[in-house]
């Protein structure tokens, strides 16, 4: 039932769900940004208010790498000057100095990590919040054209990657470069001759690691593609498991799954093999360089052109130089991939927000005896509402909010080339109940979406108490309109919280009164914790009908002058609907109400029924009028005509 009419308020969008990446996320390190420079500059802006921190971090990285390099170098004087000659006092002093260097190094590393974590987490927090704030201002069109999975993954994968890159990759990249550069310099200082040997192996290492990495990237892409197809299949078949069982299709399904699983296994084996051999190869090539160094260094020492202390120090640099080589490639890839994610985040941030040029606002007023309006100043809920319209001379004019809604020659389409509404005019006088009848795609929901400006008209205009809705601030416009939608959406929290969502300052008593008004009270009372019952996962522990009752109560507590009910009672069986009809009648009293329903029982007692076809009104009148006209409504009512 919940699927029904989906296409009435949004165009259907076939295509992959969740961007096809499936659970498991985007693979780290195998994506490239489109415009690296611009993205980097923009990311750096987020760090601009942390310049001092960054300076300290870089300083600390220098200290950290320096202490490590110095520690290794100390081996030379220690062996040559103290150990071999037997100067233990000197050795002790040198060790104490070394201990101090190590301590400073450890301290610097710790401080640097702490600062960077703060920076990364706070930056991630800021980007996440900015993205969320932005999201709240995006027009519905944006949500129509993007899957939830896609949008979610910007928050989860993409921002996480940015945070990770700041927290680890950036620091490790810089410190790897420092360590690598420092080691190279120190090796040069110790023995330029040996360095030639080391260089040869280092070059080979660089070459191999980039080679294998690009190979492995290719396989990883294949793996991701197969994983997407496999996980997509799991999703679809688990979701439709009951249908599979009803058609005894288990064997075929398992067969298909096994095929996809096998494809994935092959791709994954290759991808992980190539990713996995990088480490042993690089590491052991490093050992080759270590061996070659030991050998040539030994020969040099025999010739007397090299001493044992220098050899020991040189060897320890050789050990260290391999790790940064690997780190530099890895972290560089991670940073590029984070930047690709950042581009998706920025793309969303750069979307055009909902336009809101309206200046007319809603104010609470009290009516004087002569009928003039006075802005109510005390905190109590005012007796009436009014539009405050700014005049060209700078004064404000008050127009009482009555709920008079008119469409003047409105044209609208979700896509420019496809008109949903054509030259549509209609009026709803204050307090009238207007019902829309028509088949899917006739434009019923679209009409209501134009009143609250979920979408804007292409041609013509809509007036609300004589004011063009485009001139009313969206916030105040929507505040004055209550909505109960086809798909009820509840939020995690108690039942009370959910009813109060309609008006945040409503007291418990007011919420309960609203629930009673729409006959939701009796079922709520029977729940284990009554109004304090916790609702989870979009109200999964309530029946569809109960959820809809809560959505109606939520609208009731908002107490708006105009109400839009879009298939509000479709999930409630006719007997239950009868029970809440009284409540609904009370809810609709003294309000302008737009009702979309497919049950005649809901529509029958409206002041005006509009029959829509292909975006045009083909009949208008009350129930009796329309029956008398013997037109389309009459045919529908008597079952002679079938909507299609």
């Amino acid at each position, binding site marked *: 039932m919940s699927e029904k009419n989906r296409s009435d308020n949004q165009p259907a969008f076939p295509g992959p769900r969740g961007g096809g990446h499936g659970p498991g996320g985007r693979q780290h390190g195998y994506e490239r940004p489109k415009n690296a420079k611009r993205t980097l500059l923009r990311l750096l802006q987020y760090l601009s208010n942390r310049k001092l921190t960054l300076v300290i971090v870089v300083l600390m990285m220098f200290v950290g790498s320096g202490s490590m390099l110095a520690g290794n170098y100390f081996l030379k004087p220690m062996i040559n000057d103290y150990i071999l000659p037997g100067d233990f006092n000197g050795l002790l002093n040198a060790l104490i100095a070394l201990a101090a260097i190590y301590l400073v190094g450890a301290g610097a590393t710790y401080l640097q990590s702490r600062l960077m974590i703060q920076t990364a987490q706070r930056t991630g927090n800021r980007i996440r919040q900015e993205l969320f704030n932005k999201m709240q201002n995006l027009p519905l069109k944006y949500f129509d054209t993007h899957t939830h999975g896609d949008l979610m993954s910007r928050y989860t994968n993409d921002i996480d990657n940015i945070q990770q890159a700041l927290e680890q990759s950036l620091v490790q990249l810089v410190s790897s470069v420092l360590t690598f550069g420092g080691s190279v310099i120190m090796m040069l200082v110790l023995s330029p001759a040996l360095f030639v040997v080391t260089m040869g192996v280092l070059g080979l290492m660089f070459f191999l690691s980039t080679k294998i990495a690009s190979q492995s990237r290719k396989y990883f892409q294949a793996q991701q593609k197969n994983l997407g197809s496999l996980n997509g299949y799991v999703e679809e078949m688990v979701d439709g498991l009951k249908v599979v069982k009803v058609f005894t299709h288990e064997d075929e399904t398992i067969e298909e799954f096994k095929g996809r699983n096998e494809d994935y296994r092959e791709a994954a084996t290759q991808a992980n093999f190539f990713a996995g051999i990088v480490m042993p190869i690089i590491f052991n090539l490093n050992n080759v360089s*270590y061996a070659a160094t030991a050998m040539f260094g030994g020969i040099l020492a025999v010739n007397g052109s090299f001493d044992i202390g220098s050899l020991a120090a040189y060897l320890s640099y050789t050990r260290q130089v391999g790790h940064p080589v690997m780190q530099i490639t890895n972290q560089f890839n991670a940073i590029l991939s984070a930047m690709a994610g950042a581009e998706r985040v920025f793309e969303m941030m750069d979307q055009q927000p909902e336009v809101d040029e309206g200046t007319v606002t809603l104010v609470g007023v009290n009516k004087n005896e002569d009928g003039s309006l006075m802005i109510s100043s005390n905190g109590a809920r005012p007796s009436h509402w009014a539009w405050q319209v700014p005049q060209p001379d700078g004064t404000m004019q008050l127009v009482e909010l009555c709920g008079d809604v008119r469409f003047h020659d409105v044209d609208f389409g979700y896509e420019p080339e496809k008109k949903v509404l054509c030259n549509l005019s209609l009026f709803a006088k204050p307090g009238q109940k207007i019902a829309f009848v028509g088949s899917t795609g006739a434009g019923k929901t679209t009409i209501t979406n134009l009143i609250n400006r979920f979408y804007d008209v292409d041609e013509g205009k809509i007036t609300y108490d004589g004011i063009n809705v485009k001139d009313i601030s969206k916030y105040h416009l929507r505040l004055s309109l209550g909505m109960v939608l086809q798909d009820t959406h509840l939020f995690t929290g108690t039942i009370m919280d959910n009813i109060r969502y309609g008006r945040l300052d409503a007291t418990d008593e007011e919420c309960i009164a609203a629930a009673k008004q729409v006959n939701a009270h009796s079922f709520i009372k029977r729940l284990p914790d009554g109004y304090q019952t916790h609702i989870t996962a979009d109200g999964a522990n309530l029946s569809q009908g109960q959820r809809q009752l809560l959505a109606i109560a939520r609208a009731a507590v908002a107490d708006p002058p105009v109400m839009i009910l879009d298939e509000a009672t479709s999930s409630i069986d006719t007997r239950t609907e009868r029970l809440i009809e009284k409540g609904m009648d009370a809810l609709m009293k003294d309000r302008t109400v737009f009702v979309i329903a497919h049950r005649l029982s809901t529509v029958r007692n409206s002041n005006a029924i509009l029959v829509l076809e292909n975006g045009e009104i083909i009949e208008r009148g009350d129930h009796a009028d329309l029956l008398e006209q013997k037109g389309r409504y009459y045919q529908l009512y008597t079952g002679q005509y079938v909507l299609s």
Partner: protein
Amino acid sequence: MIKKLSKYIAEYKKYVYLVPILVFLDVLCELSMPLLMARIVDLGIPGKDVSYITRIGIYMILLALGAILFGVLNMYFTTKVSMGFGANLRNALFEKVQAFSFNNIDRFSTASLITRLTNDVNNVQMTLMMALRLLLRAPMMLVIAFILAYNINAELSIVLAIAIPLLALGIILIIKTAVKLFTTMQEKVDAVNNTLQENLIGIRVVKSFVRAGFEIEKFKKSNDDLTEAGIRAVNIAILNLPLMMLVMNGATLAIIWLGGQMVFFGTLGAGELVSFLSYIFQILFSVMMISMVILMSARAEASGKRLVEVLDTQIDITDKPLALPESSEQPSTPMQVQRGKVEFRDVAFKYDRAGSGENVLCGINFTVQPGEVVGIVGGTGTGKTTLVNLIPRLYDVSEGVVLVDDVDVRDYPLETLREQIGVVLQKNTLFSGTIRENLMWGNPDATQEEIETACRDAQAHDFITSFPKGYDTELGQGGVNISGGQKQRLTIARAMLKKPKILILDDSTSAVDSGTEAKIRASFYQNLSQTTVFIIAQRISSVREADKIIVLDDGNIVGMGTHAELIASNRIYQEINASQQEGVLANV
């Protein structure tokens, strides 16, 4: 848990034995290097023996190349084993889930089953790979390096004997605290994602109640909570590195101090001292690796448990064990549903079979003759769906018996039974693929003619042929590109194509307008006269002409008869009818 999962690795057993050998050789190669280097320094250089130095140097290079070979081989087998294990496990899980009864499916949520089959399997598979690479290597490295260091100098290894437990203890403390903090952080992550999800799904509600500010505040709170928890957790986790550095450097200093004196007095070579120093790094690094793997497997353990939970699920609806050959009087006549007679005898049902849950159905008794059309009406939650689900054994009765063609449904092989029963579920699913492919679920051998007949009966033929690609139109996942009413008609056609003896329609025309629905219904009477049809409906008009209408209320049959009989005598039926007498306008 490990025992249960280990059977999926069985076919790779020989590799599993091979891997430790390769790792052992690899470690040995690597750890021999410093020892050989010590020889160069202590024997070659003082002896000025260039050929000795060259020889040892070449040994070292060969060892390093050998280590590459062993490492790559090890990786080859490791990926083969772990990916193969993952694939086996995934197959087993998928097969298990396919065998689930409706009861089993209900107990796990769909989302949770999907995560288990995707994320959780991946976690376990990756952890196995890590374990094969590191969990074997690190302890071997630790032990062998320690032995070698001990051989170089027993006294100096006392320093290691102090440093190792010190580091291990420190890391365990850090990890323990960090794990707790990371768990808290994960909860905050969930909270943030939950708020996000709700805002995406409910964006229209948020916008129409203009609650952007409220939602932003709500998000800010959970976002800030997450950041604070994140900082707290990571701050602890990063203590690992400085700790490692401090312990390692402390040990290095102590060794240089003690070892330096030995070198001077000639009890230790300078080269040996340097090689000892490189063992420190390898040993302490292994300690850190081991603790990391332990941390990682803690995460995989949670996933593993969730997988075992699926694998261990008792399938509660299975075929009756085959009768023993000697006791079967009339052998090998496969049982078939021939006519489609259905009888309920004193049936009661509750979902929670073990517990004290309330009966959803109670005291259900009725008989339906082959070819009859039966309507079932009643409010929501009165047990209509449950009742029909008992016929194809989607659930089993708690008490009493359901008979099809006078045989207890539990005596049929499941597949035979369900093959003869067509069910159109309330929440019905179409799969990605063409319309034709979807329809052929009903009958894989159906001819175009048969398909078209079924579609005409279900009033689907006209709209299908109105698509440019007709029956070969691609449907998106879940049939997103067609309307609800079209979807329902396709699912009806799919079930009809099965040519079942019994057809069950569970509120499956709710999105079809009444005129079209009347035509579909007419085809039941005209073309399916041999088929027993059950129709669950909201609207009285849907069941008006049925041979028999069952009125359910609160799990009990409160009325049974034709429309005329019930309208005359049954209070609840009258009420339902009254509430609908204005008729219904349906959408397509």
